[in-house]
């Protein structure tokens, strides 16, 4: 009689431990899911931190700089000429490119290099943008692969965070490739 009673107590103890562990695990999983979803919403709709690599945006952005790119302008269709954007590479969707917007749809862009004698121009088709890096000599951009669809843009770079001595907003285009139209002057 005594041994049956102590067996029941041991079984009940095991069941309680199991229930407690299960409760804690489910609570942990629930919190992970909740914070994971909040993180997704933050990165998708507010902004994300990007580590830039490559020389194509010098001197504005140098190799290994950390910048913050905000997503709201892209979702609200408010990307403008002269903005630096992060976009999906048209040839490899797993890679991102960081370039400056030289022309929006309908704008006139110069396709010849500054050293050419005869300048050729083209108009950016509907729904596309023309991107160029600030380091014209060392950048593969729309001059090689043409205009890219607007929907490939992920976000607009608004702030440089690292290195600390160049913290702050980013400067205007040093290349003077943006052709200003009449409507830009207001």
């Amino acid at each position, binding site marked *: 009689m005594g041994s049956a009673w102590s067996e029941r107590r041991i079984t009940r103890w095991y069941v309680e431990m199991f229930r407690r562990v299960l409760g804690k695990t489910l609570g942990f999983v629930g919190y992970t899911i909740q914070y994971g979803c909040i993180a997704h919403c933050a990165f998708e709709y507010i902004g994300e931190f990007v580590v830039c690599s490559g020389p194509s945006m010098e001197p504005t952005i140098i190799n290994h700089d950390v910048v913050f790119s905000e997503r709201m302008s892209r979702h609200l269709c408010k990307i403008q000429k002269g903005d630096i954007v992060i976009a999906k590479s048209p*040839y*490899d969707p797993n890679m991102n490119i960081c370039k400056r917007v030289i022309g929006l749809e309908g704008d006139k862009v110069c396709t010849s290099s500054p050293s050419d004698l005869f300048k050729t121009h083209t108009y950016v088709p*509907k*729904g596309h943008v023309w991107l160029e890096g600030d380091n014209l000599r060392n950048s593969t951009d729309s001059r090689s692969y043409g205009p*890219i669809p607007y929907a490939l843009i992920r976000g607009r770079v608004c702030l440089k965070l690292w290195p600390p001595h160049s913290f702050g907003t980013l400067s205007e285009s040093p290349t003077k490739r943006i052709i200003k139209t009449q409507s830009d002057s207001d």
Partner: protein
Amino acid sequence: MAQQTTAGRRYLRAFVSGFFVAVPVTVTVLDRFAYVARVEGASMQPFFNPEGGSKSDIVLLNRWSVRNYQVQRGDIVSIVSPKNPQQKIIKRVIGLEGDFIRTLGYKNQYVRVPDGHFWIEGDHHGHSLDSNSFGPATWTSSSCHR
């Protein structure tokens, strides 16, 4: 009186905490896992909207299966239109990168699909805004809203 205010405050706290759980989870599920959309137009007849008119088919889009950017020929996909970033189009994948396509009404009669692109066409040829108009399409997924 004091009991009523604490009950009200409890309900408010429960509502706010529920809100902060439900909205991010719903948004994440709609962005990453599945999305419901209505098919409009006649470009995928007779597969979608076979009768035309006012009845539009409603489809479930599986976002999880394209997270690695891989589709098969014959899959029906929904992308943002390269001509209009505020509009999504639903078409069938005809060719993947590296394939040679004989086009119907495109500027070149034979096209090699470049890397990172694919060729899409609507089932209803002639009534469809697809790669025969704008060329090979790439991985544009979310549209912008004005």
